């Protein structure tokens, strides 16, 4: 874990200048977000011709997305629902399967465990890019093109998730598990009522990074989904902007909708995001 709290007692003028500079830079880094939100609240003709915080603010762009875009065959409300449905299904599945299989890898002795472990490590270093086209062919063979399953099934189980959970579970003392077994706890109870609460932060990390990764996924749904009614927001927004790019206001409103869930998650669970990022530093 990176220790961001460690204070260096320096009170020179130089360090004050650096601090002020860093604050200015940090706010500059937020500028694209601020501009996006402001643009989404202005009528399109004003976006390029007013200063950041001036202009006549309205919610028309959002209204356009939810009302008029339907007539252009761009159901944004539906796609927002699709995104949440797909992302939450994948996240729930990855967390549950990773917890059970991770528990097996960490705490149960069975024949071939080392080999499975090696397979997971191997799988994590093989570039996913190579399998893009063949996986599309598989989905096509299964007759799943233009279905929710195409976006959910292939990513329901994650080697990375299993690896992360197993690493964390190994640190939980066996005494707890033995005590639970003496009380005749079932496997489900051991995993859900013991391992998950004891390893809260790793479960949160797996859930959050799976959620952001799935929400943000663009190329795969672009390939397997051409039905506007089942498109996730990322793809619908992209096709909308390719065709109706001149509607800058609505496009920015759509971008806000696409970015907002991740921004909120990041602000609320920033501790786990920081922890997760520093885990990869070892």
């Amino acid at each position, binding site marked *: 874990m*990176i220790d*961001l*709290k*460690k204070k260096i007692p320096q009170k020179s003028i*130089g*360090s004050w200048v*650096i*601090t002020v500079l*860093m604050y200015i830079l*940090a706010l500059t*880094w937020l500028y*694209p*977000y601020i*501009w*996006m939100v402001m643009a989404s609240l202005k009528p399109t003709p004003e*976006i*390029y011709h007013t200063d950041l915080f001036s202009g006549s603010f309205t919610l028309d762009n959002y209204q356009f997305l939810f009302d008029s875009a339907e007539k252009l065959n761009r159901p944004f409300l539906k796609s927002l629902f699709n995104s949440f449905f797909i992302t939450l299904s994948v996240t729930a599945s990855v967390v549950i399967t990773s917890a*059970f*299989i991770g528990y*097996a*890898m960490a705490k*149960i002795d*069975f024949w*071939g465990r080392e080999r499975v472990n090696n397979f997971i490590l191997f*799988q994590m270093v093989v*570039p996913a*890019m*190579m*399998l*893009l*086209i*063949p996986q*599309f*062919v*598989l989905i*096509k063979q299964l007759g799943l093109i233009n279905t929710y399953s195409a976006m959910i*099934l292939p990513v329901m*189980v994650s*080697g990375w998730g299993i690896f992360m959970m197993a690493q964390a579970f190994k640190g939980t003392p066996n005494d707890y598990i033995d005590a639970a*077994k003496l009380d005749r706890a079932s496997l489900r109870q051991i995993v859900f009522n013991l391992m998950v609460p004891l390893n809260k932060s790793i479960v949160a990390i797996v859930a959050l990074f799976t959620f*952001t990764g799935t*929400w*943000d996924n*663009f190329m795969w749904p672009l390939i397997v989904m051409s039905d506007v009614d089942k498109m996730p927001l*990322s793809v619908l*927004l*992209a096709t909308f*902007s390719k065709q109706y790019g001149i509607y*800058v206001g609505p496009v920015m409103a759509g*971008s806000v909708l*696409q*970015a907002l869930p*991740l*921004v909120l998650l*990041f602000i609320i669970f920033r501790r786990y*995001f*920081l922890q997760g*990022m*520093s885990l990869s*530093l070892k």
Partner: protein
Amino acid sequence: MKFGNIKLGEIRESQIGAALAVSFLLFNVIFWAYPFVWLLILSFSDWRFFDVPTFSGLKNFFIVLDDPEFWRSLWNVLRFLGYYVPIVLTCSLAFAFGLQHIGRGKVFIALCFLLAHISSGVAYSLVFTKIFSSTGPMNRLLLDWFGFSIPWLSSPSMAMFSISLVVTWKFVGYYGLILYSGLVAIPNEIYDAAKLDNTPPLMRLFKISLPMINSQLIMVLVFAITVAFGIFTEPYMMTAGGPMESTNMPLLVIYESAFHRLQPGRAALMAVIIAIVSYLAIKIMRKILEKNVELV
């Protein structure tokens, strides 16, 4: 009696463990191993998604190697790295050093930068397209202050540079944090000794700081190379590979040839070659730059 019970329990448990592992493997047989079979078939056959694949030997191989688009995309990866690596390394090093000197609000500042990292590719690509557009806020600022504007995304010589700026915006916080974790691990005594010897700051940077964070720098470079070969959303959304193919990256070419020209064999083989090239690039970079740092 009791003894027997426990033994029974253990047998059951190892079976459950094996069953869980088998279900994991089964999933991967379908969604991971089986596609490799298709990868093999696709690479050596003529196919347009609808007809029956016919064996064509090494034809795909020659098509890819003869394809100027393929070479152009590899060249574009190099061009991207040429912009991206110096810019992102300088920025994230500055960020890491800056973070070291902040007394108050370190977490807040780190979070501001990391917010760019946790954001949706489609959303920020659209935002930057508008910010960089010919009448956008960037050009308005330049016109007001300096009296000229820049064709950020519409000129073949600028587009790649603009995209690498956007990717830099996204990754500086993360890379900077990696470098920062290396910097805080350097013992202060080394710097104190250097100060006693009156070592100039630039010398301290190149002779102490950078060598001491070698492993973190390597990690950042590995990430940068991976991004360069695997980037898709940003060029697809911001330039669609143009203008004049100046931002046509490997994944865009693969996407185009598989789904618009219906040549999945050529696309699949290209993906394999690109993956191998990126692996080799990382390997060579490590060979040249990686050093074992030991504190005596």
